[in-house]
Each structure stands twice: as C-alpha cells, then as structure tokens.
C-alpha cells in the first residue's frame, strides 16, 4: 500500500509525493492564474502561465527539499563539545 518503510522505497515515495505535489501546485497555480487572468487581467494568458510556472517552481522547490531532507543538518544532529576541541561539529549518524 502506501509508503513502505523500506529505505529503498523512500526515494520512490519521495518522488511520488514530489510529483503529486508538483501536480497539485501546478494545478493550483493554473487555477490561480486563470482566475487572476479572468478576474484581474482581462483574460490574458500570461497570469495562467505565470501561475503554472509558479506552481511548477513551488513543486520543484518542495521536491528538492524533500529529497534533501535526510541530509539537512538539524539541531538534533549537532553534538556540542567542550572548548578543548573548539567548534567541532559532527553529524550524528542518522
């Protein structure tokens, strides 16, 4: 079913969610753009395209984020050491 917890399927799940998200963003952008074009911009096409672009960009950005999420350094990953070894930042094994 859904997302399996296997690590090899994480990527697939991420890509799936990316795509789904991108589609949604696209759709949403399109709709917004169309709406804007219809309502504000006198049925010009450029708001719709702009909206699609915005949607795609957002989707892309989300996807990027999702794909990089395991590598991001979070506060829980940082170990603080004493002054002997100053500012040694190490990643905690994830």
């Amino acid at each position, binding site marked *: 079913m859904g997302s399996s917890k296997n*690590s*090899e399927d*994480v*990527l*697939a799940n991420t890509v799936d969610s990316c795509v789904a998200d991108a589609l949604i963003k696209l759709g949403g952008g399109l709709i917004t753009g169309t709406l804007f074009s219809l309502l504000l911009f006198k049925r010009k096409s450029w708001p719709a395209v702009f909206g699609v672009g915005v949607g795609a960009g957002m989707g892309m950005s989300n996807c990027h984020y999702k*794909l*990089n999420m*395991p590598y991001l350094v979070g506060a829980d990953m940082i170990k603080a050491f004493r002054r002997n070894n100053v500012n040694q930042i190490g990643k905690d094994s994830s």
Partner: protein
Amino acid sequence: MWKAPVRICSQSKVSLQNGRHIIRRNINSRKSNQISGNKFLTIAGTAVLATVGGSVALAKTSDGFRKFSEKNIPGSSFLYNLLLGPPVSHIPVFTPPVRSLEDGLLKKKLEREASKKTDDVVAVTPTDDLVESPKSSVDSTPLDVTEKPIDDEKNENPIKEDPVGLDNEVKLEENAEVVNDSGSDSSVTEVTNVQETAAVNLSEMSSAEFETLLKELHAKASEAVKQAVDAQDIAAASIKKHVDLVFKSLEKIYEPGQTQENVWEPVFVATQDKNEAVHVAESRAHEARLAVAQLKEAVAHGLKNDQSIQTPDLITFDESVARALYSLETAKARVDAAQSEAKVMDEYRELVDTARHNLQMELSAIRPDLSPNLKTEGTKLGEEEVNILMAHAYWKIITLQKELAKQQSREQQRLKGALDMQRKEDFSILESRLRVELERQYYELKAKYNQDISFHEKTLSDQFTQQLKLQAAAYTDHLNDSLKTQYLELKRTFEAERELDIAKLSALHHEDLAKLHGMGKGIQDAIHDRAEKDRISRQVRELWIAAQSMMDSLRSNATVHLPWNEQRRPLNLNGLNQALNNNDEFARAVLESIPQSAVSQGILPQGALKERFQNVERVCRRVALIDENGGSVLRYALSYLQSMMVVKVDARPPPKQDEEINLAELNTFDILARARYHLEKDDLEQALRYMNLLKGEPQNVATDWLQELRIHLETVQAVNAIISYAAVQAIESM
C-alpha cells in the same frame, strides 16, 4: 370460525368412527377371540387343578414325593401343610427291649407271694408262714437279682426307722384304738408296685444311685413296718373287743328285755371288724416283712461290694433293719396273744352254748310243749309239772354238784398239768423271744462294728491320701528345681556356642557384603557417569540438531514462493531453548546475543534477502550520483539518466587473492556488482562488507536491507557458534 375445527372434528369423527369401526372390528374380533379364549382358559384351569390335586394326592401317599416337591417347588410345602397336615414319619418308635429275665423272675416272685397271701387270708393262722416266707426269700440266693432292687427301696427307710420303731413301742403302751379300715387291697397293690418298679440291677448302679435307692427302700420299709404294727395293734384291739362283747352278750342274753338280735348284732359287727382287722394286719405284716427283707438284701449287697465308705448310712440302715424286724415280731406276738384269748373265748362260748342246749333238751323232754325260751312269761304251770320240774332240777343240781366235786378234785391235777403246759409254752415263748432279742442284739453289734470299721477305714484312707499328696507335691517340686537348673546350664552352654558361630558367620557375611557393595557401587558410578555422558551427548545432539535445523531454515529457500515481504518469520528459539535446557552458559550467552528484533519481528531468510537486494540495487543505481551532501532534483534526474546509461554487469568475480583493491576508489556500481556476486555465491558476509562501502544516498537506500542482513548474519553467526559448540561437545562426550 368453527368450520375448520368442525371439519377437523368431523374428519376426526370419521377417523374416530373409522377407528371405532376399527375398534369395533377389533372388539368383535376380540370377542370371537375371547370365546376361544374362554375355552382356552377353562382347559388351562382344569389342567392346573388336575396337576395340583394329583400332586397333593401323591404327596399324601408318598413321603418321598412330598419331600422332593417341597424341596424343589417353592409353594408346595405351604399347600401340603394346609391340606395334609405336617409331615408324619411312619417309622415305628424304637423302644428298648425290656429286661425279660428279671421281669420273669420278678413275676414268679410276685405270683408266689400273691398266692401265699390268698392262702393266709383264708386261713386264720397265717403268722408262721409269713414269718418264714420273707426269711426264706431273704435267704434264697437265686432270686438275688430281684431281691436287690426290692431291697434298694427298703434301704432308705433306716433313718426313719428308728423314730418309727420307738413310736410304735410307745403307741403299744398307750394302746391307742385307731380304727383304720383302709382295705388290704391298697397294701397288696402297693407291694406289687414296689416290687415291679424295682427292676434295676444293683451291681450296675453307681454309689449315688445306690444311696438314693437305699433311702427309698428305707422309707418304704419303715412306712410298711409302721403300718403293719398299727394294723396288728388294731387287730389285737378288735379281737379283744370282740371277746369282751361275746362275754357280755353271753351274760346279757339272760337279762330280761333283750332280743337275740339286739344282743348278737354287736357281736356280729365285732366279729366282722375282727376279721377285717386281722386281714389288714396280716397283709401289712407280710408287706412290711418284704420291705425289710429288701432293705436287708440291699444292705448286705452294699457291704459285700465295699460301698460302705461311700454310703455311710449303710450301717445305720443295717441297724434299722434289725430293729424293724424286732418290732414286727413283737407286734405279731401281741396279735397272737389276743388271738389265743379269742380262742379261749370261743371255747367258753361253745361250752355255754352246749350247756344251754342240753338244758333245753332236757327241759323240752320233760315239758315238750314248753317254749324253748325259758325267760318268757310262760304259761302257768300245773303242780305236777312243777314237781316234775323241781325233781328234774334237783336231780340236775345233784349231778352238777357231783361233777363239780369231781372237777374240783381233778382241778389240782389239771391245774398242775396246765401249769406244766404253760411252763413249757412259756419256755418256748421265752426261747423264741430270747432268740429274737439275741438276733436283734447281734444285728446291732454287727451294725456298730461295721460302722466303726467304715469310720476307721475312712479316716485312715483320708490320712493316707493326704500323705500321698504331700509326697507327690514334694517330688514334683524337687523335679521342677532340678529341671530348672539343668535347663539354665544347657542354655548357657548352647548360647555361648551359638554366639561364636553367629559371630564367625556374620563376619564372613560382612566381608562378602562389603566386597559386593564396593563392586556394586563402582558399577553404579560407572553406569551413572556413562548415563550422564549419554544424556549430555543426547542433549548436545539435540542442540546440534536444533541449531542445524535453524540454520537450514535461515538458509533455506523454502518460502521463495512468497514475496520477500512475507517471508519474514520471527525467529523461533523454542527448539533451541528446549535443547539447551538451561544448562549451558555459553550457549545461553550466545542465544542471548541474538538481537531481540530477530525474535520479535523476525528475520528474512536468505532468499528473501537476495530478492530484496535486487530492488535495492536498482534504486541504488538510480541514485548513484548523489553523495553525502544531498542532491537537487536535477542531480536526481541526472543520476537516473546515468543509471540508464551504465551497463549492468551481471556479476563481477572477486579479484584474486593477492590482488589489492582500493576500496576508496570503488563506485556504487562496482560495489553493487561485487555485492551481487557474493550474494549469488551465498556469501552474505562479503556482500555485507562490500555494501558497507556505499556512501551517500545509496547508503541511505540500502540501510534497511543492510540492517536485515546484519540481523540475519548475527543470527547465523550465533547458530553457527552453537552448532560448533554442540559438535565439540558431542565429540567430547563420545
């Protein structure tokens, strides 16, 4: 609303009717059956009655059948008892045969005595015979057998005899006139009864019976004697009375106003009385003599058989026998005296009668017309007649005077002669009395002598028995003492010997036992060790088998029909645990080293891992370009493109032994290829080693798979360790 039920009812009626029809039909048929049934019943009833009646009749006649049927048929006894009465046995009762010999003798004796009695009753002088007969019966020995039983009954009288004898003498002196007219018949029957019931042989009796018989006899004899003496007294008295009456009547008859009947009636009465009394007296005397003779015989028998010690009364009985006889004799003497007086009286009467008769004859010769009775008024006599009468009278008187003178002259002579006779008689009487007295004294002395002897015998025998008892007691005591000492000595010696023997034997026995015990113990220990080893080896083998089976399951491809997802099985350590049995620390430690997730969540078997690797490899190839720093979408797309470009090499064989590999230079594809190769060779460890070299996103992707692989390998390692351990132990315990 009611149609349906009505219909039903009607239908049922119909059916009922039908049933009734049917029933009727049945009844009809039953009736016909019943008719024939009646016949059957009657026949059966008659048959039963016939059998019952026949069996009852048969039981009445045949006892055997009755018994048989009572035994086998339960109710028949009740029936028979009801109809026939209780079973009667027809066997004649057995009566012991009567002692014919004694009875015969007894009968003879009875007849003899009865005949004697009848003779005595007829004759008026029976006394001599009576005296002799019992004595003869006493002396006659052939009838001893019958005499003794008769005597037995007399022997019980002696105790009563003494006071009775005394009483009799006293009574005689008082001269009591007791009119006892009880008939002689009872006395006769008494005697016969006495004799008949005494048909018991003396010699067979025991001392107690003898004593009782003696007592009975004594009682009877004393009673008989008493009665005899009484009767004789009565007889004497009545004779006297009769004599007096006759005298009186003879005188009275000349008195005026006395008819003949008046005078002579009391005389007749007295005569009758006298006769009766004499009867009774004689019979009683006879009876008494018999009883005394019996008693005497029994006493003699007892003395002969030396039963005097046992029956101390025997001597007194003896004495009393003598006394009884004496009293009888005296009574008889009295009766004899009375009877002699009666004789005298008779003679006198006769004389008177004859004188009167003569006188009458003479008178009638002179005066035939005179009435015989001179005392009547008489007719007037004429002078001549008076003269004749007077002359006759004168003549008579002169003749009488002459006679008187003659008589007086002869009186002296006659008196002398009478006195002589009297003297002679007296002498004889004296002799007889003396004889009687001597006999009595003889008997008394004898009795006393016997008494003394018996007394002495008794005392001496008692003393003797006492001494004997003392001696016997002393002897037994001595014997007991000696026996006791002997017993103790023997016991001591034997016990000592026995103790020695026992000690020896027990020592030997103990030795053997110890040996055997040692051997047994050794054997037992060896066997236990062996058993222990065997047990351990078995356990170890079990462990090995369990571990081996686990390894097999881990390495198996049994569930390859399922996708690797579903091949996850939780590790079943039950077999291993059982096999371990908590004994083995090493194995336990090893088992505990198995990660808990293996037990709880499960392990993928080898096949599953391989299968999963394929997917992992695919994904790893697609993200091969992304390292630890992460990647953007573009990079992902590029790496995907790259993966499509790179040719998939199936399997790269490992480098040769001495060839070094620069692990840092390996890229994902290399790593994957090598891992794949080793996987296909079932070398999971090498695969794991290579897969650990992955870096970046491929590492992330393979993480889970690596985890599974590690768990698997850990388990495998543990199981291997256990297997080897079990193998080592098995070899050890062999």
